[in-house]
Structure formats: C-alpha cells, structure tokens
C-alpha cells in the first residue's frame, strides 16, 4: 500500500476573540487509501482543504489528529526534522511554478534532491542525466531555466521529482502556469510515467487535467465528498458531456 490515511484532521488556530479560540477545521476526518501505481486526482474549490491535504501527503505539514502511513512508515508520529528525510526518499514534488534554481543548469537542478540524499553520491550525475532523458530533455542538460520553454521547465521539475525514485509523485497544479499545448505535453508525460508503474497524485481544480487520472477524489469543507474511478465519476461525466455538446454546437456554428 502506498498511502493509508485514517480520520485525518487538521485544525488551524487563528488566535482568540472574546476569550474564545478561533479555529479553522481544514481537514475534518479524511480517510483515504491509495495503492501503488494509482493515478489519483484530488479536486476541490479553494478552501476545500485540498492544499492542506497535499501538504500533509507531502510530509510538509503534520496532521492535528489521525493516522498517515506512507509506504509502511507511520509519518504522523515523526518529528519535523525526520520528515525531511522522508520527503527526500519517498516523495517527488512538482509545483505549479516549477521552482527551478535560476542560476543552475537543468542537470544541476535535477541533481538537487540527491545532494540531500543519504544514497551514494557516486553516479548522481548519471542518474540525473537518465531522469532528464526519461522526460525527453536528454539534449538540454546544460541549459539554464531561462533558456527553456515553460513545458521544458516543468519537465525538468518532473525529472528532479523522479531522480530519487520516490514512492509517490505529488503534483500541485502542475499545468497551472502552462498553455494548452504544453499542458498536453505534461499530461502525456504523466500518463507515460503512470504506465511505467509510477504512483501519481495530482492536485488540481481543472476537470480537463483531472480527467486523465484514473481516480478522482473530491473534497469540500475538509471532507471527502466523492471518490470514484474517473469513468464512473458523475461530475466528470457531466463535464465530458457538456464539453462534447459545446464542441458539437461549435462545429455546427462553423458549418452554418
């Protein structure tokens, strides 16, 4: 099992007013199980708790209550500094705005997680090159981020996320800063990775992007409100139908 979450709660205290503590219940009893090689999209409007869930899944934040077991590791019990190692070895992050180091080459950017790894440094360069080749940038290793397109930058970020062979790839709005062409590039890359056995969790608010995942988990007010395989998700099916209808109307309009 890749991820097992039980009754996860996250409460933020925003201070006190008239002697009463003001609390925001960002996650309110979330339970979720994700198997290896799953491709899951987590969806929700802003304030639904999806960012909080992602932070906890990525071991960047700790739950107030509940259990989180990642690849057999009970991470909810771990200290903040111990979580650093878990992040390094178990999780590959992809961010909306790439977060590449501007002054460093693609290769050096991809090597970054290995700098903090306890694994042997020997062969780090080779592993980074392999990761770049895997995302189709084998010929761009010595380019700096400003010499690459948005799609290429995000692919460098994906290579960086994969280089330590994490058990899950965690992507937060990975196409949020991309145009439709490069969005498709990244979506295709994710599908490829999924086909080769990578567990992927993608957090997004775009139905279009979520549709490429195999399972959609929807959050609202800190609770899971639906959890279906993509082809059985009613909201997504509605979206596909309306999209098809729009496309048809557009086609008719063009013909007329």
């Amino acid at each position: 099992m890749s991820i097992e979450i039980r009754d996860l709660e996250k409460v933020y205290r925003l201070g006190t007013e008239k002697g009463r503590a003001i609390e925001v219940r960002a996650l309110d009893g979330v339970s979720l199980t994700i198997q290896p090689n799953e491709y899951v999209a987590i969806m929700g409007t802003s304030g639904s708790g999806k960012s909080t869930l992602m932070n906890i899944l990525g071991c960047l934040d700790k739950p107030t209550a509940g259990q989180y077991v990642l690849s057999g590791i009970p991470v909810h019990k771990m200290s903040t500094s111990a979580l650093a190692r878990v992040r390094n070895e178990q999780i590959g992050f992809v961010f909306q705005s790439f977060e590449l180091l501007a002054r460093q080459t693609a290769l050096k950017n991809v090597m970054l997680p290995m700098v903090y790894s306890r694994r042997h440094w020997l062969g780090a360069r080779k592993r980074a090159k392999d990761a770049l080749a895997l995302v189709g940038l084998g010929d761009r290793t010595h380019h700096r981020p400003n010499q690459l397109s948005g799609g290429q930058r995000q692919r460098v970020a994906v290579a960086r996320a994969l280089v330590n062979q994490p058990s899950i790839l965690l992507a937060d709005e990975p196409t949020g800063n991309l145009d439709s062409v490069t969005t498709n590039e990244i979506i295709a890359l994710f599908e490829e990775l999924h086909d080769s056995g990578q567990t992927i969790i993608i957090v997004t608010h775009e139905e279009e992007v979520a549709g490429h995942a195999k399972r959609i988990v929807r959050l609202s007010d800190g609770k899971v409100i639906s959890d279906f395989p993509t082809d059985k998700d009613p909201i997504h099916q509605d979206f596909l139908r309306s999209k098809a209808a729009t496309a048809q109307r557009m086609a008719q309009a063009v013909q007329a």
Partner: protein
Amino acid sequence: MILLTPVMMVLRVLSQTVLLALVQIFNNKIRTFLTTLGIIVAVASIILVMGALSGMQRGVLDQFEQFGVKRVFMDGRLPRSMRGKMSWSDVQLKIEEVEAVREHVTSLAHFCPMYFGSYSVQYNELILEGIRSAGIEPSWHDIEHRDILNGRRFTKIDLEQRRNVCVINEKAIEELNMPTNAVGEFVLLSGRRFLVVGIVETMENSAMFGGGDAQTEIYIPITTAMNLNPDGWINFAQGELKDADMAMDAVAEITFVLRKMRGLEPDEEDTFDVEVMQEYLEDFKKIGLVMTMITGAVVLVSLVVGGIGIMNIMLVSVSERTREIGLRKAMGAHPMVILLQFLVEAVVLCLAGAVFGIAVGQLGLMGIRQAHEMLEEAAAPLWAIVLSAGLSALAGIGFGMFPAIRASLLNPIDALRHE
C-alpha cells in the same frame, strides 16, 4: 559506511555551497566589496600594524645587537626628594666608586669610568674648538669592541704613568688634516702635547641614541684627564655584562655596592642610575603592547561594524531566496543543512573580505618600508595573517548565525508561497 553517509552529505553540501558563494561573490563584486568593507579595514589594520611593529622590533633589536645587548651604564643622579639636602656635584661618580664596583660586582666582565671634557685641539696651524675628549681606561676597548686601524690600544702603563698619549678616530684625522697614518704625530690638547698612539674606527651614532653624524673623538688615559679636571669626579661609567641574562643581577649588585659606599639609609632614594639595555628593550615592548592594544580596539570595532554589514546582507539574501529555501526543504534538506549553507556563505564572504584586506595591508606595508629606515624590515608575520583570517571567519560565523537560523526555521509551505 552507514555512519559515514551523513558526513559525506555534509561535505557535499559544503563544497557545493562554497562554490555557489564564490560564484555569487564574483557576480556581485561591488556589493561584496561594500558589504565586507568593515572586514577589509579590520584585516588590513592587523596586517599593517603588526607588520610595522614587528619590523620596528627587528630594527631596534638590530641596533641593540650593534650597540651590544650586554652594555651597562651608570651615572650620578639627584633624586627629587634629595634636592634640598645635596647638590648635583655631590652625587657625581668617583673613581673609587668605579673601582669598588669593579672589585665586588661579579656579573660584570669589564667596567670603565669615563670623563668627558671639551678642549681646543691643535694640529700644525689648524685649531679646532670645543672638541669632545674622553678620559678612559684600557678596558674601554673591551667594552666598545672598536677596531684598531693603526697603532695600538691603551695600556696599563699609559694609565699608571699618566702619559700624554691619545687614541683618535678616523673622523679626527679628517678634520685635523692629518696624514692617513697619524700614529706618531703630536696634537696639542689645551696646549699640551699628546702623542697619537692608535687610530680607532669611527662609529655612527645609532638612531636610538640621538643619531646624527659621526663626531671627532679624542681619547686620553683617564688618569691624565683627571689632571686636567679640577672637580675630581667623573661623568659616568660603562661596563659589559658577562652574559646578557645577568642584566638584572648587575643592576642589583651595583646598586648594593654604591648604596653602601654612599651610606644611603634604607628610606633614601638612590643617588645614582644604573641602566641596562634590557630596560630599553622592556620599554620598547611596552610601547609595542600599547600599540597592539590600540590596534585591537580598532580591529574589534571594525569587525563588529563589518559583521553587522555581513548580517544585513545575509538577511537580505535569506529573504530574497525564501522560495529557494522552501524548495530545498521540500526536497528533503534538513534544517541543520540549510543553517550550514547560509553560515558557510557568510564565512566565505568574510574570508573574501579578509583576502582583500590582506592584500591592502601588504600594499600598505610596501609603502611603510619606504617611510623610515627603522621600518625597512616591516613585514606581516604569518601568525598575523592567520589570526586576521581566523577573526574574519569567526565574525562570519558570529554574525551569520542569526540569518542562518532564520533560514533554517522557515516553514517550507510558507516559504514556497513567498512572493
């Protein structure tokens, strides 16, 4: 191997950080220069002052060496508390006192009384007025170690028979227009004929003892000189220690003998002065210490000012790179590793300042070497260079700590959202 991996990781982070910091310094030369100005001033002043001081010390030691570290001086002195009771002439040295010292003081190898007089000197038709002549004993030669260029030294016989003989220096030959080998010639000293028996080399006065050009010198036996001297006292006495280490023993011994001879009560001050070269050395060391302390204060202030500059620029760096810190943390960098990264950066910045400061200091020393002959050998000792670099690194650690701790404590979620 398992134990070594964290060490290897730290080394990896260190080497990468040092490299990154160097690139950053190279890319922001003006910013680096302005930031590290305090450090540069501190380091340059350490190098300059320590270099000048050690050069001066070497120069002074050279002069001591030249003059003789074993030298002892003795003369009469009227202490303030005795001014009412006795006059200046009462405290002048007597020949008998010098003889008593010579007899009883074991730490002295040689001891010689000296009496100076000023006479008119005539050779052929040439008359020179106000020439300093010194009455001495043969032991003078053993103390001064001057070469005899022609003729001979004074002998005991010259002394005992109060002979009218003299030893002159080369300068006197020149001034009096005498033949190069003046031995056998006669000069008139206050109207009395003196046979020149020996020529000694001319010595320049060292800078420490008034400096200036060599003077015409005429030496005669002190017994002969005392005949010309109605007062019966001598000016001073000088001696040579058996060993340079015996300086303080000699002072104690001479003081004991003279106090006894002069019948001084325990509550009365010495009516004479005994000086050894070592005392001058101690004085010089004290001056050096004071200068070192003043420099220390300047260095401390500029290190603090420089350190604050470093802290400021590191705080700017941390806030400029908040997202990068967040990213590194998300990638699994332990807070301690982040702390180390920023600390190393601060230290590298300080060391860059130190290197520049050392260069400025060395340039300054080149100028100082030209400034005065006493400073010709001014050079920064290795320990001063190491110390200044060490202090800069320490300032980097001290003042880089706060920004580094701030960086290490950043929450990765907030840091990644930072605009």
